[in-house]
């Protein structure tokens, strides 16, 4: 299961499929694909595992099945490196 790191308010702006996000915990700013933002946004209602996130986001991300689950798993690992999400 994954959750947002406590204290992250996900203050972000999205333009043309890309987004910038202010990391409240680290004080840094990240350039993200809009899909990563969708994952973070979905985790507001979390925690969820990658399969549940895939099911919730399938329509939004226009993908499905095992491929989407592994894509979301990769994304979660990358977002964890930025201290935006953490396993729980």
């Amino acid at each position, binding site marked *: 299961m994954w959750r947002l790191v406590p204290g992250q308010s996900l*203050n972000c*702006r999205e333009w043309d499929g*890309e*987004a*910038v996000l202010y990391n*409240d915990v680290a*004080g*840094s*700013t990240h*350039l993200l694909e809009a899909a990563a933002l969708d994952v973070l946004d979905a985790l507001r209602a979390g925690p969820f595992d990658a399969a549940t996130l895939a099911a919730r986001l399938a329509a939004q991300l226009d993908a499905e099945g095992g491929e989407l689950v592994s894509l979301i798993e990769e994304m979660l690992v990358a977002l964890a490196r930025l201290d935006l999400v953490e396993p729980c």
Partner: protein
Amino acid sequence: MLTVAALPLPELGARLRGDGLLLRTGPFVNCVRTDVASLAAGIAAMYADYPVEAPGGFVDFHLNLRRPRGLRQWLRPQVAFDQDGLAPFQPLPVAQAYPMLEWLLNWCVSQRAHGYLLIHAAVLERHGRAVILPAPPGSGKSTLCAALVGHGWRLLSDEMTLVRPADGLVAPLPRPVSLKNASIGVIRAAFPDAVLSPSVEGTSKGTIAYLRAPRASIARAAEPASPAHIVFPRYEAGAATRLEPVPKARAFMQVADNSFNYPALGRQGFDTLARLVDACGCHTFRYSDLGEALARFDRLAREGA
């Protein structure tokens, strides 16, 4: 309003040697004290139209440029600097006193003016639209800025864009435009009427000269401007004039990289920059022909973001 030009030269010198000349540049009051005679002439020439505040008034930055005492002053005259007692730079040859004053005025703003989002960028305005030019040294930013000034654009700053967090507008800080090496001749040739300071050779940035800010820009120093475009310029010998869009999220990151205090402002910096990028068209601009560049910028000033 008292200006530097209205002060007789002996009085200007006396203030500089005494309690300080309270020189207003944009939103800031600088108390300049110096015993370097050539600086009085430089200030008189380049800051003639700037307001002078009454002695004893509020001061943002205290700048002291002094000739160090001792034997060295006879052998190789130098000028040293301190700001509120801090001495962040090594002394320089006295011939470089004027560029040092300009660098110090920039340094004070970049270190202290955290009421603004400070971007290392030129900013100019025409038809009510401000164009911000963030760029690293060597990109031709100052040459382009000087050419736009010569072409009638309002100068807000050639070095420091001050974005107000409260309303997202750009506060002007018009000061002399710094020109380096080949740019000096380019601007002299293109704008024979432009007033330039004497060239100073052998600085850490090569030969340097300053273009006096237009009187009309100084007169409007209290009038903020609405940002409309962010343009990342790049001079390339032989390049065709080309303006191309930059995705906004990438422009955001580039401007953040060119900011003096974005990390220090935290969430407020993010919100201010996001609002700025929202309001602006974002572009890269490659050029080699100054005339074509000016024509393209004139078109840009007529277009909204």
